[in-house]
């Protein structure tokens, strides 16, 4: 079991003409791809254009993807090349990499510069989403919160979390799912009017 296997299942469906499966891949990696592209351009709308172009390029190249590398490695490479080509076509250089924190983490300075160029609407929406998610996490029972934080923030596997929380792997799986379900439910409640992110596809 691996992220590669789950991605490969979706890739194979998309290769057989299932565009919804490719939508799922986009939904999964859109934040990471935008995060990556933002290291090359600071304008969020420009980053969105580049990310969109990268996903479209990936879709066109999908018949030639044979799974020799992980899908996320492949799409990251496409996104980086797209960003570089975008800058080269405009005779510009990538923004300062010093703005990135360790391990690719976005530094506060970087976030501040991104806010400078984001539209008020986009900023308001992003801030609202963050506050909703953070509030929902705060309301989680301790064992669920700890499990989701260990997974998402520290990137630990279920087995590692089980060892750390001294519980079976199945319990870890259940706790993480329940944490996500609670946050997902809260997001749906707030954005039922149409601002929710996942509902626009499908």
């Amino acid at each position, binding site marked *: 079991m691996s992220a590669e296997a789950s991605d490969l299942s979706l890739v194979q469906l998309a290769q057989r003409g299932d565009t919804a499966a490719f939508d799922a891949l986009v939904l999964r990696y*859109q934040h990471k791809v935008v995060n990556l592209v933002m290291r090359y351009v600071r304008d969020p709308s420009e980053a969105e254009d580049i990310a969109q172009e990268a996903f479209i390029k990936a879709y066109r190249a999908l018949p030639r993807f044979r799974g020799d590398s992980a899908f996320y490695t492949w799409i990251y490479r496409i996104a980086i090349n797209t960003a570089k080509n975008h800058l080269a076509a405009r005779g510009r250089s990538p923004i300062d990499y010093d703005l990135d924190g360790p391990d690719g983490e976005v530094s506060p300075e970087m976030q501040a510069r991104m806010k400078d160029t984001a539209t008020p609407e986009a900023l308001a929406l992003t801030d609202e989403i963050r506050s909703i998610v*953070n509030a929902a996490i705060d309301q989680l029972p301790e064992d669920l919160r700890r499990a989701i934080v260990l997974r*998402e923030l520290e990137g630990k596997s279920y087995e590692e979390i089980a060892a750390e929380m001294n519980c079976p792997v199945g319990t870890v799986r259940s706790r993480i799912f329940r944490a996500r379900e609670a946050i997902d439910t809260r997001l749906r409640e707030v954005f039922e009017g149409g601002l*929710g992110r996942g509902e626009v596809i499908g």
Partner: protein
Amino acid sequence: MSEQNERASQLSAMFDGELPDAECELVARRLSRDPELRRSWSNYGLIGAVLRSEPLAPSQLAPRVHAALASEPAIDPNAKPEPVAERPLHLPRWAVPVSGVGVAAGLAAVAVFWWAVPGDPNVSTATVVPSAQSVAAPLIEEVVIAPAVPAAATLVAAAPSAASAAAPAPVVGGPEAATSGEPISYVTPRPNSRGSAPAVPLPAQLASYVEAHSAVSAPMIRHSVISATMAVSDPETTPPVEAEGR
């Protein structure tokens, strides 16, 4: 846990790469069919990005990609990766004619081995002489094949007579042959003492054929082949093949 929760639990595990591989295909199919599952899937990504304080993708990115792909030609489900084209053999220009000669030489060698039946002088002698005359005429004065049987002798003796008069053949057959004035043979050995068909030493026969057919071989190579063969196949020192096999 209800069936819906079980499916969502599988989805969550798949998002983390913790779902057994055997279940991934089934959950992927559900995900592609069910918009609600895709919405949850999308929010899972959002939750992770918020927890890691990553910049969030603009909310319209995924719909824009989806809309753009709608105008793309559909992926052909039957399309296969392009086959790797067979790379043509790239030879340098000078090597093309050489390669042709090499093929011809190879075919000639195969033909020689095919026809060269050890122990059957009628066949071997009769096939060598015409070739020697037509392909490597200048060499005939050196390659003089002695008659092994009367029928072959009539074919052989006429050919080298003029040449051998102008340039005597090298003496290789032993003292008595050198003084008798007869054509000297280093190809056909003497009949063995039991009077059976003469056994032909294979190396000597091969050298003779190579000599007769090698119109393109270098003179130095020819002579070295002959010299080496003569050293091995001297009928005075080398037992016949038939005797060796016993």
